[in-house]
């Protein structure tokens, strides 16, 4: 391709925002308010991963009153409800319209490279050249499947939560759900209710009641300032970023291991290996449950302490008692896929952002983005929506507001410095 022709097909803009989910749109709104020339590139439609990569029954884990974006909040008649998938899509769609975000839909970014002091964003249509880049492509871009999945017998279908839609799509037979964080417990519950026998492999997990003393747990976490906790307020940010998502479902009911056991789900230890057509489960189940029980007790005790110091105006119910996690006397250590007719393994083993297209010196040896609170190690590049990126709420919908403001001003300062350099240089 000749330079002239390439130039003709290249759009020039100050900022390219990659991804038109809630974070990218919130940054777009900020940039528009500050008169910054930008474009939002979206591989599909607005709120694409909610449309294409989530299961049918998914609801937000935060109540409607908390699910807000800058200048845009839930205005329906069920503030304590939880948005369904279609409601989340409509909410984000509305936001894109309200802020008049310059979204180019159906544009897939194929590569980002440095080009003198700019960035070149190559796509499956035209290229863009920009000074700043906002990575709002999401923390949940690809489902992580452990390497041991390769040892599954051919009779077993391996599925990720991004592929799974509804129980009816699965073959007859039992299901092994691997992972007991939010995704794993929700899918185990839905599959067991649909009549399948579910075995749930449980590693490290965070147990949380949906409500405590009659109030939603996310409300408590917000009141206690836990959701607003910043990365400089925790002792080991690497560790807290790895903490799995709590066992929650977007409904008034608690969905912990005891609820699942009560419905007939069999609880086993984490999958330690797959050999000779059998899954082997770790003997660490007791300790993983003991840790989760202790952490839950500590959190509830800290809520009680908070209540003592902040006379809460609403009548609170008794704390009640929460049973420790029930465990079988002898947790099972192995499962034979053939003999027990387990035909599906659902890997609820976490999500990772996808940066396979990001060709900048900003990824470490493990392919993870190097950043300080979303300020990426490549100059003028910012991330959004990653797990505990700046604050505990960074990956939540309502977490976008503070992060976008902080990083938006960082970005403006970078553009100004850029202009000054250009003027004097």
């Amino acid at each position: 391709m000749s330079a002239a022709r390439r130039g003709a097909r290249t759009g020039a803009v100050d900022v390219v925002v990659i991804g038109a989910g809630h974070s990218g749109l919130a940054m777009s709104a900020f940039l528009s308010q500050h008169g910054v020339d930008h474009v939002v590139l979206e591989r599909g439609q607005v709120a694409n991963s909610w449309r294409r990569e989530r299961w049918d029954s998914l609801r937000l884990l935060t109540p409607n009153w908390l699910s807000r974006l800058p200048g845009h909040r839930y205005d329906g008649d069920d503030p304590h409800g939880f948005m369904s998938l279609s409601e989340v899509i409509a909410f984000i769609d509305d936001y894109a319209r309200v802020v008049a975000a310059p979204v180019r839909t159906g544009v897939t970014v194929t590569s980002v490279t440095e080009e003198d002091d700019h960035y070149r964003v190559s796509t499956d249509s035209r290229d863009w050249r920009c000074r700043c880049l906002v990575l709002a492509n999401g923390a949940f871009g690809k489902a992580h499947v452990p390497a041991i999945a390769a040892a599954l017998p051919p009779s077993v279908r391996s599925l990720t939560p991004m592929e799974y839609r509804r129980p009816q799509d699965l073959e007859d037979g039992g299901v092994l759900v691997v992972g007991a964080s939010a995704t794993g417990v929700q899918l185990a519950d839905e599959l067991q209710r649909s009549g399948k026998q579910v075995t749930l492999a449980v590693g490290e997990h965070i147990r949380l009641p949906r409500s405590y003393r009659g109030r939603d747990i996310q409300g408590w976490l917000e009141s206690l300032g836990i959701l607003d906790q910043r990365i400089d307020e925790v002792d080991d940010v690497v560790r807290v970023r790895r903490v799995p998502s709590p066992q929650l479902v977007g409904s008034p009911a608690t969905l912990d291991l005891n609820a699942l056991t009560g419905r007939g789900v069999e609880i086993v230890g984490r999958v330690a290996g797959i050999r000779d057509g059998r899954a082997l489960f770790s003997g660490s189940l007791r300790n993983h449950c003991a840790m989760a029980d202790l952490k839950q007790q500590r959190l509830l005790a800290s809520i009680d302490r908070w209540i003592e110091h902040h006379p809460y105006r609403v009548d609170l119910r008794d704390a009640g008692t929460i049973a420790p996690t029930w465990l079988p006397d002898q947790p099972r250590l192995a499962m034979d896929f053939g003999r027990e007719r387990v035909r599906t393994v659902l890997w609820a083993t976490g999500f990772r952002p996808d940066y396979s297209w990001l060709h900048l010196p900003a990824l470490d040896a493990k392919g993870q983005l190097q950043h300080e609170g979303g300020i990426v190690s490549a100059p003028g590049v910012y991330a959004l929506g990653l797990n505990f990126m700046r604050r505990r709420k960074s990956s939540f919908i309502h977490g976008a507001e503070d992060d976008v403001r902080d990083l938006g001003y960082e970005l403006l300062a970078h553009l100004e410095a850029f202009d000054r350099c250009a003027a004097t240089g």
Partner: protein
Amino acid sequence: MLQNGTQVNNGVNVAALLDARQALTNAPEAARFKWRATTRWVNGTHSRSTVSSFFGLGAEQSRKVEFKYDADHPEVFASEDHGATPVEFVLVGLASCLTAGVAAVAQHRKIQLRKVTATVEAGMNLQGILGIDADVRNGFDGIKVTFDIDADASKEEIAALVAQSQKRSAVFDIVTNPTDVAVEVR
């Protein structure tokens, strides 16, 4: 937790451990260790093992002394009982690993320990190793570790110490998860 002004000392150099953690984060190759033991047959079921060198921090490491361990089986096995049975060495490994972990975590959390005792019991059905019943495994059918801990901490803090010690324990991981074992003859 201890009152202000009191120095917690469980004999664990936490600062050195945290420094090592930082150093090994930045130098992943130095974190690769090799542990070794050599076992020589003496007579009957009696063997003597020695433990001395290991590899770590990118170099061969030696100790001031060589540790020696006799292993045998008790007289009810028609053996001469010159030492603990190999399965008991596994229990010793597990309990001492967890106990070391309790001390390290307690030091890090500023909890003074006064007494820590771990008692381990493991069940085994000999029909496995004797080949009587193919459905019975050779190894333990379960292990129970009971800690008695006297420390300046609440019951919950002590439970959390023991839980964290399991989470970070090498032997707990070795015992609870499968490990690929290659046995060769030279």
